[in-house]
């Protein structure tokens, strides 16, 4: 009661030395208790906090006039706390007084971190006087300038040993400051209480923004549970935990290691932040390459089997068409089946292109001619697109499969045109470049000259997510049923298969540019001649070699229709045996490449040994890594891609036997 009246009188008096709102921050309960006793006796309002972190919690709701701050505390020390407080607008004018036990050994430049005074800790009687003296200064703060001087040093017990302690602490600080990993300390509740310089730069916020903030909130909302769960786990088990799978932090990929640190005073968690952006980028590239490879193998296998199926259908349809009167309704139906087989065959050839397994006929070609022809044909189908050609006059030749390059061009044109549904401009440019000019890419081009084909459209463009997947098979941005997702995938495969490179640059709403680099060839380009001859009765004997019964069956019938006498071999070994017996009467061997036990390549070599004059036409659903071209390089006479129709087979055989 008495005290209340006394308080009242002081307030009522309206003097300057008024009741103050005070916060005391110190980690020793005895100090807190003493300060509370002392200051409450002077009628001040006092709150206390045991460390910097809880002080900041209190300061969210409480705006003191004076704050006493212990210098060395767990969970945000005095120096940091002062700096943070000075950034809080409401506390700009608060009077900050450092309570320090180390002031005696170390000169503390407390003004550098924003404090107004410093009191050396000593016995309570001395400290009481200094605290009260310091409070008197508060009211004169704006008037007299006090030289920064620690009060009460002369009263402090000599503590020379602390100097050593401090130098050890400094040494650890130096180590932490020079770590390549970000090091954070967080409380079990997830509040940040320490961040080393690397962590600060990784997170890219200032230290005072970081300290006392919630650790999980540094991360994307979608990642936060992945942080909170291990924190709970660590709370339970006290075992270190690594957060696997990168987390996004300030646009970087980071991995986390959480280490529980427990001493008698406090539990906290040390977080080691490692920037794994570069590592993840390389991993992603590797995975992408492996994915393309795996899908390529799969696609190639499917295409091969599919071509064999189509071959059987095609052959039978061809045979039936020969027997059916064109006036009969079944004739048209058979023609429809034949057309569908051709569409199916185009799909598989796209797949093979992607799988890089369709490459079989490399010849030096003129890219300019091909670009001109293909784009002209294409232009006729898309009237609302204006094509601009800028073709280099002295363009190098390149060794390529003409059919496949046509496919590449078509795919690129169609892709561009689809990006310009309302019409637009398509710019085609060819140029000679040296590998040294292909710089700053994710790959290192092989040395040599290249032909660069640039296809630029003025279409809708793509975002980076689409660009990342643009060459994935079955990825399409077109509505269901319109795109197969194979066009650009096969383009990619074909270009790679030719030892070239393809790049895409695009931005949403800004059109797209595809750049295709093909290795230049020293050989002069050849003009292409497309054979065409009508079916007519042929004479001769063909040795038909294939391991699949249905293929043998239909091929035999087709050959017989064409007029050939047919010998059939169901394996490589059988083929060699038959050839030995009948080599004089056999005019041509129609040889499958992929067979169990002995493949087409080996059969070819054995036949050549028996008779160097043997004529061989290879046939395949595909050729493994240019297996067909290898055999062709050894002098083989020709290649025919399954599925073939009666006309194609007739022409291919005639071209060899001519």
């Amino acid at each position: 009661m008495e005290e209340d009246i006394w308080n009242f009188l002081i307030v009522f008096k309206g003097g300057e030395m008024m009741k103050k709102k005070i916060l005391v921050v110190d980690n020793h309960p005895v100090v807190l208790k003493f300060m509370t006793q002392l200051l409450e006796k002077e009628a001040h309002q006092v709150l206390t906090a045991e460390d910097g972190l809880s002080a900041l919690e209190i300061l969210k709701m409480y705006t003191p006039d004076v704050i006493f701050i212990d210098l060395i505390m767990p969970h945000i020390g005095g120096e940091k706390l002062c700096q943070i407080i000075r950034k809080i607008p409401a506390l700009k004018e608060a009077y900050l007084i450092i309570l320090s036990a180390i002031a005696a050994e170390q000169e503390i430049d407390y003004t550098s971190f924003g404090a107004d005074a410093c009191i050396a800790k000593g016995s309570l009687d001395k400290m009481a006087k200094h605290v009260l003296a310091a409070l008197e200064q508060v009211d004169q703060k704006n008037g007299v300038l006090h030289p920064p001087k620690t009060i009460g040093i002369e009263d402090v017990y000599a503590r020379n040993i602390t100097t050593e302690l401090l130098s050890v602490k400094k040494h650890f600080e130096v180590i932490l400051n020079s770590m390549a990993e970000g090091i954070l300390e967080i409380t079990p509740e997830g509040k940040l209480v320490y961040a080393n310089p690397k962590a600060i730069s990784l997170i890219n916020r200032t230290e005072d923004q970081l300290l006392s903030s919630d650790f999980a909130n540094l991360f994307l909302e979608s990642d936060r549970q992945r942080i909170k769960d291990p924190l709970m786990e660590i709370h339970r088990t006290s075992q270190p935990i690594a957060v696997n799978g990168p987390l996004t932090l300030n646009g970087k990929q980071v991995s986390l290691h959480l280490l529980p640190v427990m001493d008698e005073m406090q539990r906290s968690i040390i977080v080691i932040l490692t920037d794994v952006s570069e590592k993840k980028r390389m991993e992603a590239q590797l995975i992408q390459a492996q994915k393309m490879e795996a899908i390529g193998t799969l696609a190639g296998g499917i295409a091969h089997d599919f071509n064999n199926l189509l071959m059987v259908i095609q052959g039978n349809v061809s045979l039936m068409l020969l027997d059916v009167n064109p006036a009969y309704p079944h004739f048209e139906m058979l023609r429809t089946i034949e057309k569908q087989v051709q569409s199916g065959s185009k799909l598989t050839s796209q797949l093979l292109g992607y799988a890089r397994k369709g490459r079989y006929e490399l010849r030096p070609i003129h890219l300019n001619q091909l670009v001109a022809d293909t784009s002209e044909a294409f232009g006729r189908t898309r009237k609302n697109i204006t094509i601009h050609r800028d073709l280099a006059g002295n363009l190098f030749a390149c060794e390529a499969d003409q059919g496949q390059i046509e496919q590449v061009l078509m795919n690129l044109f169609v892709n561009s045109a689809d990006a310009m549904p309302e019409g637009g401009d398509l710019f085609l440019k060819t140029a000679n470049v040296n590998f040294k000019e292909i710089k700053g890419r994710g790959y290192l081009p092989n040395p040599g000259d290249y032909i660069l084909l640039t296809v630029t459209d003025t279409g809708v463009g793509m975002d980076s997510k689409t660009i990342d997947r643009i060459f994935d098979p079955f990825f399409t941005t077109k509505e269901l049923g319109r795109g197969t997702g194979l066009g650009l995938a096969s383009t990619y495969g074909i270009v790679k298969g030719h030892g070239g490179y393809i790049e895409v640059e695009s931005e949403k709403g800004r059109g797209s540019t595809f750049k295709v680099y093909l290795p230049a060839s020293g050989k002069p380009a050849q003009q292409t001649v497309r054979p065409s001859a009508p079916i007519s009765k042929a004479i001769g004997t063909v040795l038909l070699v294939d391991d699949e019964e249905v293929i043998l069956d239909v091929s035999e019938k087709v050959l017989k229709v064409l007029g050939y006498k047919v010998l059939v071999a169901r394996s490589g070994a059988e083929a060699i045996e038959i050839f030995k017996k009948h080599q004089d009467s056999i005019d041509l061997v129609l040889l499958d490449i992929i067979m169990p036990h002995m493949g087409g390549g080996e059969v070819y070599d054995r036949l050549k040994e028996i008779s160097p004059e043997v004529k061989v036409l290879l046939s395949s659903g595909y050729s493994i890594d240019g297996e067909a071209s290898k055999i062709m390089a050894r002098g083989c006479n020709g290649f025919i891609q399954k599925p073939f129709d009666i006309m194609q087979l007739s022409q291919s055989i005639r071209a060899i036997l001519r």
Partner: protein
Amino acid sequence: MNLKELANRLEIGEEECLELLNLFIKTAASELRNLESALEKKDAPVVERMAHSIKGAAGILRLQEIHDAAKKIETAARTNRLEEIEVDLRIIKEKLEMIAEALKRRS
């Protein structure tokens, strides 16, 4: 231990002094327990830190003997000479018990 004399030297009231000593005993006892278990594990840094804390509190309460003993323990622990601290540890324990006894008699 004379409470009145100590309160006078600290220039605080007897009740206040009693309160502070109670708090000190409680804190120091727990710090002492930590110190002893750290000693068993030969964890010198923890021994050092505990001694440092006891020393600080004893210093502000003018408990000179505890302060000096704690200081010796702190120095020994820093140089990892844990075998030297036994005597000082016993001094601290005895003094703390004495204070505790005195406080019990008061209440």
